[in-house]
C-alpha cells in the first residue's frame, strides 16, 4: 500500500515543479457541430483540441485569423467565449485484437455494452499510406464465397474492389457474405494447425445507416459465428456529420494495425456515398467553397487517401495486407455521377449490381459485363482457374445471344449449345444471402458443369441439382474436398476422383 502513496506523492511533487504550457483559444461562434476559434496559433491540421467538459474536436480549417474545428459528439454545452486547448496530438483510436467481436463508435469507444476494450495501443486515424517501395503486387486470393465473384471477378488480398449498385440490390449482403466466409475459412484454417495459415480479420464500417440496419447486420454476424473475427465501427444516421466523416478513417486505422503487424485484414465501408454526403454537410457549415453537386473541391482526396491505405506490403515490411470493399449507392444505375466516377477511378475494379437482375430473381445480381477486377486471375487458386477460366466469356456471349433465344428451334446447333450452357451457369450462380460457399465446393460444382454433368438436367432444376451435389460432397466426400483445398489444383489423380464422385452423385440424383 505504501508504494501507492509514494506514487501519488511523487506525482504531486512532479506537478508542483512543473509549468504546463498550453496553446489556447476561445470559441467565436458555434453551431451545427462546428466551432470557429480565435487563437490556437500553434494548432496543426487534424490535431485534437479539447473543449470544456472533455469534449474533443478536430481542427480542420486553419485560416489566417481563425480555426475551424469540428466537434466530435455532443456540442450543446459549448458556448461563445469558452476556452479551447491544443493537445499536440493527432486524433488516435485504440487498435489491436482486443477490438475483435466489439462494436465501437467513430472514436473507437465501445457502444455494445460489453465493457471496456482490452487495448493498450492507439493508432493515428489519419496516416500516410504505404509508399510504392513497401508494396507488393496482389497475388493471394481473398475468397468471398460468392461463386460468381470468386470465379469471374476474383479479389486478392490488398485489393480495393468497389461494390456498386442502386438501393436494395444486395450490396451489403455481398460484403457481409465475404466477412462470414473469412470467418468460416479462419475456423477451418486455425483448427488445421497449419503454421502457414493466414487468417483474415474483418472490419465493418457502417456510415449513416439506420440503427435497425446495423443491428440486423450485427445479428447476422453473430448468428453465423463471424463476429469474433470482426470489428464493427458504427456512425449511424443519427450521429453527427463529423462522426460519420471520421468513421471510415477510424476503421482504416484499425485495419492498418493488422497490416503493419504482418496480418491480413478486410475492411468494408458501407457506404461511401453517405460518407461523401456527411463530408459535404460539414464543408458547407465550414463555409468551404463547393463545386460539382455541391461537394467541396477536395472530395476526391477524401476517398483517395482513405482507399490508398489498403495495400499489400512486401516481406520486408511484414507481408501484411488490408483489402478494401468500399460500397457506393447509385441512382438509377448511373455510374457517371460525381462520387461513383471518382471512386471507380481509385479502386482496382468494381462489382456492379443490377436492379433488373435482382428483380428477375438472379441474385446476387452481379452484372457480368460491367464488373471487373483489375487484379484478375493472379488472385485465383489454380483449381478455380482450371474450372472457371472460360466462364466469364461464356456468360457474356450468353447475354448477347439471350435476345435470340425466342427463335428456339431455328437456331443452329452451336448457338443453341451456348444458350443452354449460359442459362445453366446463370442458375448455378444463384445463391441465397448469407451462405458463402467454400472454394473447394465451388470447384467441384464448376468441374461438374465443365464436364457436362448438368447438360441433361432441366434449367429449372439446376439450383436443386447444384445444392444436391454440394450436399453430397460435404456429407460423403469430405476427404476429396479437403484434397482440393490443400492441393489447390486439379491434377490427374484429383480429376479421376472427381469423376468417380460426380458419377456416383449423378446416378443418385436422377
Amino acid at each position: 500500500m505504501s508504494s501507492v502513496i509514494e506514487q501519488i506523492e511523487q506525482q504531486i511533487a512532479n506537478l508542483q515543479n512543473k509549468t504546463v504550457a498550453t496553446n489556447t483559444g476561445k470559441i467565436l461562434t458555434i453551431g451545427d457541430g462546428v466551432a470557429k476559434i480565435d487563437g490556437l496559433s500553434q494548432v496543426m491540421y487534424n490535431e485534437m483540441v479539447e473543449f470544456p467538459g472533455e469534449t474533443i474536436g478536430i481542427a480542420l480549417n486553419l485560416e489566417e485569423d481563425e480555426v475551424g474545428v469540428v466537434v466530435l459528439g455532443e456540442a450543446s454545452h459549448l458556448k461563445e467565449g469558452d476556452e479551447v486547448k491544443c493537445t499536440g496530438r493527432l486524433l488516435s483510436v485504440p487498435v489491436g485484437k482486443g477490438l475483435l467481436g466489439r462494436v465501437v463508435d467513430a472514436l473507437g469507444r465501445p457502444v455494445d455494452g460489453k465493457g471496456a476494450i482490452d487495448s493498450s495501443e492507439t493508432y493515428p486515424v489519419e496516416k500516410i499510406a504505404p509508399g510504392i517501395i513497401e508494396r507488393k503486387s496482389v497475388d493471394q486470393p481473398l475468397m468471398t464465397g460468392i461463386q460468381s465473384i470468386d470465379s469471374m471477378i476474383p479479389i486478392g488480398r490488398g485489393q480495393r474492389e468497389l461494390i456498386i449498385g442502386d438501393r436494395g440490390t444486395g450490396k451489403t449482403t455481398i460484403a457481409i457474405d465475404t466477412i462470414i466466409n473469412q470467418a468460416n475459412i479462419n475456423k477451418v484454417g486455425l483448427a488445421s494447425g497449419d503454421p502457414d495459415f493466414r487468417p483474415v480479420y474483418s472490419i465493418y464500417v457502417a456510415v449513416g445507416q439506420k440503427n435497425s440496419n446495423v443491428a440486423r447486420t450485427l445479428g447476422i454476424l453473430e448468428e453465423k459465428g463471424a463476429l469474433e473475427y470482426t470489428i464493427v465501427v458504427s456512425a449511424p444516421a443519427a450521429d453527427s456529420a463529423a462522426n460519420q466523416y471520421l468513421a471510415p478513417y477510424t476503421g482504416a486505422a484499425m485495419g492498418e494495425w493488422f497490416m503493419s503487424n504482418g496480418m491480413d485484414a478486410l475492411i468494408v465501408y458501407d457506404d461511401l456515398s453517405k460518407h461523401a454526403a456527411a463530408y459535404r454537410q460539414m464543408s458547407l457549415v465550414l463555409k468551404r467553397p463547393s463545386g460539382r453537386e455541391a461537394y467541396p473541391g477536395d472530395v476526391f482526396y477524401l476517398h483517395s487517401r482513405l482507399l490508398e491505405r489498403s495495400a499489400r506490403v512486401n516481406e520486408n515490411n511484414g507481408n501484411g495486407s488490408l483489402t478494401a470493399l468500399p460500397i457506393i449507392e447509385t441512382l438509377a444505375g448511373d455510374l457517371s455521377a460525381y462520387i461513383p466516377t471518382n471512386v471507380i477511378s481509385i479502386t482496382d475494379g468494381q462489382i456492379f449490381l443490377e436492379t433488373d437482375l435482382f428483380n428477375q430473381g438472379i441474385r446476387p445480381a452481379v452484372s457480368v459485363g460491367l464488373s471487373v477486377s483489375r487484379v484478375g486471375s493472379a488472385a485465383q487458386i489454380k483449381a478455380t482457374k482450371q474450372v472457371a477460366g472460360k466462364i466469364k466469356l461464356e456468360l457474356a456471349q450468353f447475354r448477347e445471344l439471350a435476345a435470340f433465344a425466342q427463335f428456339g428451334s431455328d437456331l443452329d446447333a452451336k448457338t443453341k449449345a451456348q444458350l443452354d450452357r449460359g442459362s445453366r451457369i446463370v442458375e448455378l450462380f444463384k445463391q441465397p444471402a448469407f451462405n458463402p460457399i467454400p472454394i473447394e465446393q465451388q470447384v467441384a460444382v464448376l468441374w461438374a458443369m465443365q464436364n457436362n454433368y448438368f447438360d441433361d438436367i432441366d434449367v429449372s432444376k439446376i439450383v436443386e441439382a447444384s445444392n444436391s451435389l454440394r450436399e453430397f460432397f460435404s456429407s460423403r466426400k469430405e476427404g476429396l474436398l479437403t484434397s482440393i483445398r490443400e492441393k489447390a489444383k486439379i491434377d490427374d489423380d484429383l480429376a479421376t476422383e472427381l469423376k468417380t464422385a460426380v458419377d456416383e452423385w449423378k446416378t443418385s440424383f436422377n
Partner: protein
Amino acid sequence: MTQAKQIKEFAKQLFRMSLEDGELSPERVDGVLKALEKNPPRHLLATLKAYLKFVEREVAKSTAVISHAGQLAPEIVANIKSQMEGKYGRKLDTVERDDPDLIAGLRVVVDCDVYDASIQSALSTLESSLN
C-alpha cells in the same frame, strides 16, 4: 469579395497604419480613429469592431498577463518579463492580476499561450489523472 471580407480587409489596412516600426503606436491609433470620425465609411460600426479585433490581438501578443495568488515580488515580475521577451523575441508589457483561485503559484498568458505553474492547475491535472 463578400461585404464581410471587404470590411475585414479595410480594417486590416487601418491596423497596418497603426503600427510604427512593427509596434502598435497609440498616437497612430488615435489618428486612425480621428480620420474615421471625420470620414465615416459605409459600415462604420462593423469596421470599428473588426479594427478593434486586430488591435486586441496585437495587444495580447505584446502583453504578458501574470496572474498570481498572494504577494508577487517585483524581481519575479522582471524575471518573467525578460524570459518571455527572450522567448518571443519582442518587447512585452506586463500586467499583474491577483487571482486567489490559483491557490498558490503563477499563471502567465501571452496571446494564446498559457504557462501554468499554479497549484490549481496541478490539482486539476491530478484530479483528472485519478479519474
